[in-house]
């Protein structure tokens, strides 16, 4: 099933260039296939084309890109090189567009096709992003199947997705011990992250209330409580905290980080419905609280306790991190606004966080 030979994978003989080269190769491959499709279409139906001709061209190009993918992977051993990533996406996009231009497919049918395609790519080419697509389309299949069962389904939809995600999460977590999957470990990691997030999303008060209003015409007016609201509030508070506690106790970095990330979503949800606190006051309080918490944590962990430290572990130094961090700081803070050209060297409105307005 896997396109690479076992010896190549074990001895790391695959062609996996640096991340920046990968980005470049991805962009260039997309350009090549895109313009090839354009040129082909121009040549073939310059007079009249019609939708069907274009649909057939799309399918034809899906086959072409797939053949190119197979060649690059089997003979050149490309793996995560940008070329294989791009060809996979182009194959899937050409194929799905071709099918959908040709005739109309239901959302369910599209989800099934998506799932099968993504599963195949993830399995054969060990594509991490494709495994996430497969996970999402699997949940979409559940969603669109269940929704056909009428009114009751609409009310219980969050529970279905929640339970499905939880089952999938535990399955995927257990699956890393299967030797057959030992070359797909990073796919499994991504799927774990995905299902942890979908568990939270399907139980999140904001998502359930607003999505229910939007898609199922639940007709809730602003301020009106939702049936079983208390349950969804429990989920909203519970899951991030559960992840963080479980992540800390098991020393599972993935659980811990997803928990911390979802903590932000939890805080935003609570703020959306409850506190009339202005955003800036909230930011000051939250920021001060976070810094205080970190200082406390660093004091507490001055000597490593319970196997935790805040210091770098020898041999795990990351050389590029400071440069990346500097760029993020430049991007998110200050944002000094440039002056209008008329006031060269001597313009600029307030530098510094938050300062705004012209002087």
């Amino acid at each position, binding site marked *: 099933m896997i396109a690479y030979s076992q010896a190549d994978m074990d001895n790391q003989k695959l062609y996996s260039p640096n991340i920046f080269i990968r980005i470049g190769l991805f962009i260039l491959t997309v350009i090549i296939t895109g313009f090839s499709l354009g040129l082909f279409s121009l040549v073939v139906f310059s007079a009249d084309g019609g939708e069907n001709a274009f649909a057939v061209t799309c399918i034809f190009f899906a086959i072409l890109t797939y053949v190119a993918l197979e060649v690059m992977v089997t003979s050149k051993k490309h793996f995560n090189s940008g070329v294989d990533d791009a060809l996979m996406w182009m194959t899937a996009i050409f194929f799905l567009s071709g099918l959908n231009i040709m005739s109309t497919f239901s959302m369910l049918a599209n989800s099934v096709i998506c799932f099968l395609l993504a599963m195949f790519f993830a399995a054969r080419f060990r594509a991490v992003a494709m495994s996430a697509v497969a996970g999402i389309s699997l949940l979409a299949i559940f969603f669109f199947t269940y929704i056909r069962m009428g009114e009751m389904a609409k009310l219980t939809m969050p529970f279905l997705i929640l339970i499905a995600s939880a089952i999938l999460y535990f399955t995927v977590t257990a699956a890393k011990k299967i030797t057959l999957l030992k070359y797909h470990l990073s796919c499994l990691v991504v799927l774990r992250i995905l299902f942890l997030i979908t568990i939270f999303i399907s139980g999140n008060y904001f998502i359930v209330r607003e999505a229910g209003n939007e898609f199922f015409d639940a007709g809730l007016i602003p301020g009106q409580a939702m049936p079983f609201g208390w349950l969804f509030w429990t989920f909203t508070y519970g899951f991030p905290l559960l992840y963080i506690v479980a992540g800390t106790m098991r020393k599972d970095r993935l659980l811990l980080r997803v928990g911390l990330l979802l903590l932000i979503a939890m805080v935003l949800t609570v703020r959306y419905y409850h506190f009339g606190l202005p955003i800036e006051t909230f930011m000051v309080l939250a920021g001060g609280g976070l810094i205080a918490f970190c200082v406390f944590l660093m004091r507490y962990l001055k000597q490593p306790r319970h196997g935790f430290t805040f210091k770098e572990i020898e041999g795990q130094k990351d050389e590029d991190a400071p440069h990346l961090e500097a760029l993020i700081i430049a991007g998110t803070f200050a944002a000094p606004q*440039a002056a209008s050209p008329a006031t060269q060297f001597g313009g600029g409105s307030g530098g510094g966080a938050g300062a705004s307005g012209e002087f």
Partner: protein
Amino acid sequence: MEQPLQQPSLFSLKWEIRTMLYAGVLLLTTGLGVLVYKNIDTIGHQAILAFIALLGIGSYYYCLKHKTPFTTEKAESPNMAYDYILLLGSLSMITFIGYLQFQYNVFGNRFGLVTFIPMVILFFTAYYFDHLGILSLAITNLAAWAGIAATPQTLFTQNDFSSGILILTAIVLGILLIIMGIFSRKKNIKAHFDFTYTNFGLHLLFVGCFAAMFEFEPIQLLVFAAIIAIGYYFFLEAKRRKSFYILLMTTLYCYVAISAEVMYLLFNFLRADVGGVYLSFMYYIVSSVLLVIFLIRMNKNLKS
């Protein structure tokens, strides 16, 4: 007995705590910055202002007390919180100065002192306390003082590149920053600042030249030649530093410039018709294939 066993299982929270500290500083300073402007006419705003000033002074005091002695080499920060406290300090200081100007017009409207003074403070802080993040803030502030938005997201969106002065400023500033990078490296004064300078310089210079290609049409070929020359310089730099990042950026900028020139020649100079469309499509396919081969070769070259 179990000591050797415990060592590898030690779990580092370094990046988790760093991220939280960063988010904390971001929230706190942004919140304070908004708060002080929203409460201008109330009694509370004096208190907020005093708080911001105290925060700034307190943070600088802490950093002064804990800093390692000044060196022209890379100074290790004494502890993890130090970097973020310094960031908090300089951002509070800048907010404070910006507010003073806004409310009392302390610096008047002369010489762009409003952006100049924060810039000086930021550069001084970056060098004296050795902080890469504050250095990049200082560089964006320098650009703002010159009239250009140079943060990663605003470089392409908030600048009006149809203005000749702006284009020239970008080019001059870009060259200046690249020279600063070379200077840091050659004189070994905070040599690790080199990359930050070069990075900002590269983008400003390329974007400036690219805009010049279209704005100053009579000397277009000259500007185009300049871009290729700059591209060659950065290509050598990428090889010397073994930097894939610089290689990719240089390749993409040059490819865009070459493609633009080819399209210009094809449609504006040769006045091609439909046949030109075919030709241009073929150009993109062939040139991209060539670039793919080039990048794959370079990957091998830089790795060795």
